[in-house]
């Protein structure tokens, strides 16, 4: 690969301040325990989100802290006074069941999950001012205009609104054309037509059309994972088919998906990320998964939260990164998987959108879980045996402990970036990391200074995997992190823009960051620097990041069997 990107990438103008939208996410892992509620007051497209997916790794005290925050931040409380949600009536009735008991049980202390569901704001509809003010709406509807899913509000009350969306789409289709998007002031309305299913996003978040369309594609994929594409047949038989009830109980899945759009780079990079592990540890896990895959399992995945520990496909079958993301989102956001082992039909959209596979899912601990996918409906007891075999090997090789350790001590810290061997002027590092023995950047260099690198994401194109560095102190709160991801997403869209690109490098400076992007045949690098960073220095640092990644690649990426010897 080319070690030097062009020294003259195009500079771009700072963004107008109104483009830097308020950003907030309640991603637990990054909430410091003393995170002040006052820091998050702005309305956001991501309010009050919490499910199992974001819960791993947080202390219970942090969980309690969020709850207060979210209660506090809900500035449109007055619209929340609607009918009590099903879950607030004690344990009566799940959301999505056809009937919710309104019985007044002596209410137990509300759990975080309660208000995760409540955040759908069921009392709202398109006539509510609060509903209209929401920054990002997602809708799924049928081609007859029947609502299937809405991020906010009760689907049934949105029938009229759905019909309007359907009318817009069919008006354009009738003239032999396809509608892609509509711009209306600050709002962008993006459409995606998938046979009898229409998906629509209405957003004033300044995201690109391609980005929003990609999000709708993932929503469609998530829906297929739950129902398969054979749902289309129901519409062939009965165009007025009411599909909403078939998605009953999956609100948490879609909520978690929508939330991931703002914090999980997998949603726009179309790559997955791995948990850093010593090569020998990962090899032990991969070997036993391979063993199982050779005996009738299609795919075996061992994951920790949304990070892959190891994954193996029978006969070199591969899983698309989007499928890995959708599968892990589904599992992590469905609480029941954590209760006991389960065996459920699941469709892997990019593998076969028409058919269900069966997924055996088992959580080894709070956040590490095994998924075995098979096409055989009768394989449960075999898979259960396989799981216990895998578990024995994982325990013997200490894999689960190593995973927890890696989770706690995230490997890629900017401060650990090895210094350029040619420049010896760097002050002695405050401490040495155990896996890097060369000189380190001083913290002054890392967070301030002319070359001040703050954060980077590196995607290996060949492996479909990415790694990102730990967030530094200056991007420590979720709001700042979400803003950075938004900047990356924008960068990604402009780098991959087919009409004016593709580009190889881009250097962009605004009042928040200097962003540098570099794409080669082998990798994509997205890096954020202090806004005062010098261009030449930044490019030098990026070269060092790439070298660093190459040095660590055996620990931070998963290699398939055939390439393990690299």
């Amino acid at each position, binding site marked *: 690969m080319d070690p030097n990107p062009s020294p003259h990438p195009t500079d771009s103008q700072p963004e107008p301040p109104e483009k830097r939208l308020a950003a907030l996410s309640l991603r637990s892992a990054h909430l410091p325990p003393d995170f002040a509620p006052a820091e998050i007051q702005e309305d956001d497209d991501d309010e009050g989100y919490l499910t199992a997916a974001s819960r791993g790794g947080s202390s219970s005290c942090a969980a309690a802290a969020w709850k207060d925050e979210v209660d506090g931040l809900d500035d449109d409380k007055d619209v929340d006074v609607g009918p009590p949600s099903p879950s607030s009536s004690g344990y009566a009735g799940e959301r999505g069941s056809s009937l919710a008991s309104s019985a007044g049980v002596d209410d137990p202390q509300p759990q975080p999950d309660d208000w995760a569901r409540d955040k759908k704001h069921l009392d709202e509809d398109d006539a509510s001012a609060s509903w209209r003010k929401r920054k990002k709406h997602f809708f799924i509807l049928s081609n007859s205009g029947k609502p299937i899913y809405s991020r906010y509000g009760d689907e049934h009350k949105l029938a009229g609104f759905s019909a309007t969306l359907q009318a817009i789409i069919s008006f354009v289709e009738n003239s032999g054309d396809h509608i892609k998007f509509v711009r209306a002031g600050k709002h962008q309305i993006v459409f995606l037509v998938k046979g009898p299913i229409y998906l629509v996003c209405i957003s004033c978040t300044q995201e690109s059309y391609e980005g929003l369309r990609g999000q709708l594609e993932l929503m469609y994929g998530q829906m297929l994972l739950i129902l398969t594409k054979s749902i289309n047949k129901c519409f062939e038989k009965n165009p007025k088919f009411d599909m909403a009830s078939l998605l009953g109980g999956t609100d948490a899945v879609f909520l978690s998906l929508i939330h991931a759009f703002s914090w999980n780079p997998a949603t726009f990079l179309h790559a997955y990320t791995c948990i850093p592990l010593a090569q020998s540890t990962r090899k032990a896990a991969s070997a036993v998964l391979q063993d199982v895959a050779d005996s009738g399992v299609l795919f075996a995945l061992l994951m920790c939260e949304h990070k892959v520990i190891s994954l193996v496909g029978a006969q070199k079958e591969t899983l698309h990164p989007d499928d890995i993301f959708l599968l892990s989102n589904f599992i992590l956001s469905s*609480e029941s998987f954590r209760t006991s082992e389960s065996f459920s039909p699941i469709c892997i959209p990019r593998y076969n959108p028409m058919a269900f596979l069966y997924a055996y899912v088992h959580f080894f601990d709070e956040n590490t879980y095994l998924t075995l996918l098979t096409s055989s409906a009768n394989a449960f007891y075999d898979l259960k045996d396989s799981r216990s075999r895998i578990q024995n090997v994982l325990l013997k090789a200490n894999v689960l402990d190593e995973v927890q350790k890696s989770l706690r001590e995230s490997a890629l810290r900017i401060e650990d970036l090895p210094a350029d061997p040619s420049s010896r002027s760097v002050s002695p590092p405050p401490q040495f990391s155990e896996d890097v023995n060369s000189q380190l950047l001083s913290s002054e260099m890392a967070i301030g200074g002319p070359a001040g690198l703050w954060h980077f994401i590196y995607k290996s194109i060949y492996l479909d995997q990415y790694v990102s560095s730990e967030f530094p102190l200056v991007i420590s709160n979720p709001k700042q992190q979400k803003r950075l991801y938004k900047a990356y997403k924008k960068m990604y869209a402009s780098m991959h823009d087919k009409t004016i690109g593709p580009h190889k490098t881009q250097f962009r400076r605004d009042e928040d960051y200097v962003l540098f992007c570099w794409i080669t045949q082998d990798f994509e690098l997205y890096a954020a620097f202090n806004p005062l960073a010098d261009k030449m220095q930044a490019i030098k640092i990026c070269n060092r990041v790439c070298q660093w990644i190459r040095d660590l690649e055996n620990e931070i990426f998963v290699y398939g069997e055939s390439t393990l010897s690299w």
Partner: protein
Amino acid sequence: MGCSSSLPANNAGAVGNINNENSATDSKNLRVKLVLLGDSGVGKSCIVLRFVRGQFDPTSKVTVGASFLSQTLALEDSTTVKFEIWDTAGQERYAALAPLYYRGAGAAIVVYDITSPELFNKAQYWVKELQKHGSPDMIMALVGNKADLHDNRCVSSQDAKEYADRNSMFFIETSAKTADNINQLFEEIAKRLPRPAPS
């Protein structure tokens, strides 16, 4: 009576597939595949978790597909019964997959919510389905759950009992929340299991 907990992690001894499990083994140690059916939100998972782990979680967690748990029950006559329980999802989209879980089951529990006549009707649908497609000697229980919510009762015990009798099921009202009648339910099923003839 004693409940020895056997978490799913340590019963790797079970062999065969999802469908050929029936009551088995020697006359002192029975094993039975049991399936729970009923609409979403009636409390199937709560009943199972109360029985297997003695826990009750008021936040409803929607079951996906089906969860597998097992629990061994010791009866007074010193026989033990190991229940291999399939706790199925009540969501409409999983209805077509129910046979996967109830085929070959030795016992079935059909659950409704005593505060909802609709869910009682749905329970009757499951009873019919089991009569049509389940194994003929399956032991069936009709369970009215959420008995602690008696102030909101919409389905009378009398009606349910009569319906159960007509369909040769036994009937019990339970509360997973207060643990009322949960162990009794499983004990009753255990007692009714066919005992293998002593050899």
